[in-house]
């Protein structure tokens, strides 16, 4: 495997949060606390020197207990959070299926939201117009597409979000406990869509608590604990270690 095929390179990424017991976020408090010298900042490192590399087409499972930093890591890779230290280099179009429908407006109809959410994801107007029918069809919303989103059920919203987010051909796909959208029938359909992407050689980052799912979908894995990478390697090795730690 040549250097050319690196799809994602995470280098020494550290992420620091400030966990003050009381959050100071107004001027009055700030001045008072400043005068009384009570301004305290408590640091918390959600990620510490995380490094790994993925070749194109590799599928990485991220394992770890609650609070290990899995979601933070995905957010850093997706570009939502900027790491305090280190860097993330990615090649190609990245599709984070993290929070479907971030940017939906409740008062807008489904149709209007397709354009709005598409724009949030960085699609162009022409692209959305071209894919509009495909999105509506996949979401199975029918006439509901012209109804304001506030009247949707949560399943309908999720279906629409999924349909919009997956209409592109991603190079890197980020999945967080996914494949649980909508009813059984839709779940089957969405799983198939994701599997098709797998078959086309997309690079995948997958977070799940279900070890069985990770083993089935991924070929590589890392184990995170308190923000540090404990183990990295093939999915069998790492999940064995994870199982040991579970006991």
């Amino acid at each position, binding site marked *: 495997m040549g250097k050319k095929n690196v799809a994602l390179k995470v280098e020494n990424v550290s992420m620091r949060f400030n966990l003050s017991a009381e959050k100071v976020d107004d*001027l009055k408090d700030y001045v008072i606390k400043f005068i009384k010298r009570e301004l305290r900042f408590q640091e918390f490192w959600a990620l510490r020197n995380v490094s790994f590399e993925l070749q194109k087409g590799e599928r990485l499972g991220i394992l770890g207990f609650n609070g290990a930093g899995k979601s933070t890591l995905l957010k850093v890779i997706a570009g939502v959070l900027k790491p305090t230290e280190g860097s993330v280099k990615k090649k190609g179009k990245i599709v984070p299926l993290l*929070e479907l429908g971030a940017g939906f407006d409740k008062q807008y109809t489904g149709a209007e939201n397709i354009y709005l959410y598409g724009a949030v994801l960085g699609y162009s107007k022409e692209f959305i117009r071209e894919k509009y029918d495909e999105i509506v069809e996949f979401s199975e919303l029918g006439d509901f597409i012209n109804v304001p989103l506030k009247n949707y059920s949560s399943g309908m919203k999720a279906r629409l979000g999924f349909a919009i987010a997956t209409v592109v051909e991603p190079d890197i796909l980020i999945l967080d406990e996914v494949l649980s959208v909508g009813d059984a029938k839709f779940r089957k359909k969405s799983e198939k869509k994701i599997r098709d992407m797998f078959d086309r050689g997309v690079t995948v980052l997958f977070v799940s608590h279900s070890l069985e799912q990770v083993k089935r979908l991924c070929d590589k894995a890392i184990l995170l604990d308190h923000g540090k990478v404990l183990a990295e390697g093939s999915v069998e090795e790492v999940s064995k270690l994870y199982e040991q730690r579970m006991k």
Partner: protein
Amino acid sequence: MKKYLNNFMKYRFLLQELVKKDIKLKYRRSVLGLVWTLLEPLLNMLVLWVVFSKLYAKDDALFPVYILTGRLMTQFFSGATKSAMKSIRTNSGMIKKVYVPKYIYPLSSVLSNFVTFLLSLIVLVGVAAVLHVKPTIYVFGAIVPIVLLLIMSLGFGLILATLAVFFRDLEYLWGVFLTLLFYACAVFYYPSRVIKNGFEWIFKVNPLYCLIQNFRNTVMYGQGFDMYALVFSAVISFGSLIIGVYVFYKNQDKFILNI
């Protein structure tokens, strides 16, 4: 630089969508819809005109135009800076979940206010026509104070948006400051009395008044620019924009940790 430009081009459509959403949703549920954009400044002007012209018995046929020019410009500045200031907080849900260049939020707030402002200029044209204000060639000069006002609103909007993330109560302080600014802008009185009492400096240090002055010069009085007002307001506009961009850019990665 090229990188930023490419990124802007990529999210240009989002900017357009957000501006559209702002304007659409504001009036969606009202019967009169967009007509409110025109009606509101008109009614507002009538109130000020009745109070300050009739009750104070000031007789000047052009006074309504005088009020309206000042009113529209102060209204845009306060509306734009206020919504830009809140923009990061109101969009916190989106900011936490998906990557979008963050300046899109204050920028779209300012621009949607600007679109409403441009629409409400129709009222000004109407009132001016009814009161027989003769447009001269200088009318085209009005574009200069308008563009400077847009730049200044964006500059202050960026600074305030950044500060408001860290200091929530700034919203109230800014509201108070805007009231003060409104009274210092000679919207419903003539500056001559104030100047006579030795307070000319109030207008000299007020960039918003300087813009209103030049706007009135071009649209009402058929004159060129007041040079001091032009230079001063231009310096403040571009200065605030440069500071705004710098402050916002330096702090934008910290936003998510504070909202």
